[in-house]
């Protein structure tokens, strides 16, 4: 049976742009291998569609949904090595491996993503400063290139193809199978500690001070001004051991690997604009700050509310309204990171581009992937209502600041950056594009992001 397509409404997580386009949905990698060489249109491989940016949509091409490639193929319970198809979501991985004492070694802020998508975006988590990005937990993968050939690559075998795919934005081929290393855990609980900070200076100082914590991330009040600017909550976490359970809540010792179901709450409509205006955001941020600064002692949190707080409301991405929002995430190097973070926070706060969840985090060294986002330093992620020309100018100014300082914008979350900064931000972009062109000479794989930024 030949592959058939269906026209569907597609959008990235930030809803910009929302399009209607054909989607192919194969069941096996053999179908994809037969399909790719004969495909006459551009193909955008797509997982769960949880990337914020336009990497997962293409108005002038077709999409290849990998959600039916959702099979687990092998699980080594002793070593914690899982082999599965690319369309398996992290939720499914966790539901399988957590009761057996394992957890994804690196996991982004949502468990709805597919493992293939995490690889193609080289996702990072709250433990990047210790464990690195998702690709660094991948021991091997099967990649289908545009000629329908299967490449088995790993950091040892066909390493250049492996690293070009890590954070390769789906341009090298279709990831059909992955082998990942999991991390051993003693329970499904996280021992957390929240530390409130007064200003950005203190936030950054405390982040550095607590760099030995396995999980560390800081929420900041993006609208606080003056001496409160950059005040926030540093959230630290460790996988709770049996001892911790015994100390904090002995009843949990009988069922240390309790799973949490994803809640079924969702936003059934697009809220009116006033729900996310500056006043509402200021109010939300102040309440959030107060609520979290009270609980500064160590306590147990379940893995879902620690790692995936946003997953608790499905379609929360509607909060900023029908026009969607902008997720601005940058990484800046260690040496001038503080000043740039300060400048960005100050500018956005002054111009009223506030956010529900602004997050700052320390990052460890990057990996050999030429397009992989993380670099050693700090990363700052801010979501904001999509504005008009003035906001574009402000953000472009910040892009210049970041690019000139040797930092970069996260392309996976981006829907607006100007292409003139790309080569400064990603100095190995050209080398990567040439390599990708060798594997995809026809330019079969593409996406709106690639067109917009002329990435290849």
């Amino acid at each position, binding site marked *: 049976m030949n592959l058939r*397509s*269906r026209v569907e409404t597609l959008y990235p997580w930030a809803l910009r742009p929302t399009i209607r386009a054909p989607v192919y949905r194969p*069941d*096996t990698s*053999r179908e994809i291998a037969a399909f790719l060489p004969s495909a006459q249109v551009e193909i955008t491989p797509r997982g769960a569609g949880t990337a914020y940016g336009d990497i997962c949509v293409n108005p002038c091409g077709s999409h290849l949904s990998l959600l039916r490639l*959702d*099979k687990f*193929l092998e699980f080594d319970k002793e070593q914690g090595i899982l082999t599965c*198809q690319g369309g398996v979501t992290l939720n499914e991985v966790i539901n*399988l491996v957590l009761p057996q004492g394992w957890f994804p070694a690196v996991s982004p802020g949502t468990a709805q993503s597919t493992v293939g998508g995490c690889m193609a975006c080289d996702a990072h988590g709250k433990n990047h400063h210790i464990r690195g990005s998702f690709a660094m937990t991948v021991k091997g993968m099967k990649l289908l290139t545009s000629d329908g050939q299967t490449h088995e690559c790993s950091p040892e075998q066909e390493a250049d193809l492996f690293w070009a795919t890590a954070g390769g934005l789906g341009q090298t081929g279709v990831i059909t199978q992955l082998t990942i290393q999991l991390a051993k855990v003693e329970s499904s609980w996280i021992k957390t500690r929240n530390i409130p900070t007064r200003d950005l200076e203190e936030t950054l100082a405390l982040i550095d001070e607590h760099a030995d914590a396995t999980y560390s991330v800081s929420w900041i009040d993006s609208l606080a001004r003056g001496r409160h600017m950059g005040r926030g909550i540093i959230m630290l976490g460790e996988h709770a051991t049996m001892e911790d359970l015994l100390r904090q809540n002995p009843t949990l010792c009988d069922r240390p690997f309790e799973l949490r179901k994803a809640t079924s709450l969702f936003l059934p409509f697009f809220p009116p604009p006033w729900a996310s205006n500056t006043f509402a955001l200021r109010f939300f941020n102040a309440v959030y700050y107060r609520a979290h600064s009270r609980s500064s002692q160590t306590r147990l949190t379940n893995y879902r509310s620690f790692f995936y707080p946003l997953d608790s409301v499905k379609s929360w991405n509607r909060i900023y309204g029908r026009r969607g929002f902008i997720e601005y995430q940058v990484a800046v190097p260690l040496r001038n990171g503080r000043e740039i973070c300060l400048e960005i926070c100050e500018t956005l706060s002054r111009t009223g581009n506030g956010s529900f969840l602004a997050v700052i985090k320390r990052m460890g060294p990057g990996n050999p992937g030429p397009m992989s986002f993380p670099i050693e330093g700090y990363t700052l992620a801010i979501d904001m209502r999509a504005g008009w020309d003035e906001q574009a100018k402000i953000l472009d100014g910040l892009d210049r600041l970041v690019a000139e300082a040797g930092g970069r914008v996260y392309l996976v979350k981006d829907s607006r950056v100007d292409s003139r900064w790309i080569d400064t931000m990603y100095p190995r972009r050209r080398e990567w594009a040439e390599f990708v062109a060798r594997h995809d000479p026809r330019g079969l794989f593409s996406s709106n992001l690639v067109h917009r930024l002329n990435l290849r």
Partner: protein
Amino acid sequence: MNPEPNAVLIIGSTSSVGQSLAAEYGRRGWRLILASRDRDFQAEEAADLRIRYVVEVEEYSYNAEDPFSAKSLANALRTRMFPKKVFILIGDPGNPEQDLNDAIAAIRVTQVNYVGATALVAEMLVQIEEHRGTQIILIGSIAGIRGRASNPLYCAAKAALEVFAQGLRQRLYRRGVGVLLVRLGYVDSRMSYGLTAPFLTLSPGKAARQIIHAAEAGRDVVFIPNWWLPAMLTLRLIPEWLWKRLPPF
């Protein structure tokens, strides 16, 4: 003789509904006996079921287009206890416009949708008759209710399956063997992807749960989803002189 209590045979295991049925029975801890034409796909599915549900999964091959395939599958199954439930989900509407102009293709549609199922039942009939309490679930289609211009071959094959199920049900009744015919509506499967309107389409998981529910209730014939019952009865009441004048659909 009694059949093996917690074992289920799924012919057409790699179909969307077949996969969901296997997952549902896997969740209940049943032993899964899978048969499909696509061995590679079935191997992936079996690996997944073993990992997710920690159940025993047996893999066989069956190709409805090959008459000898039924014999070899039945022979292979003779070496083990007969399972309590047998699901037969083979079907392919084919490519109606071309199939009607091609004898080989026309025969193929009949073979896949009707002959394949009967050949298999024929090979296993002795065993089925010996095992009181077995249940055979044949997955038909709402297409079998009335012939339509868009795909006469498929409608006819599915209608034949209905009548076959009737005969079989009467024959096996005294042997304590149940025969359930499922008139399945549109399911979001590889077969219907891109062809049917989403609001008419049932997810494979829901379809599987409803099929199992009907099987457990010991039903003979069931529409899934059940709102097809009034819709199809209405269609059936239309007199033929009017039916033939309706715009083709």
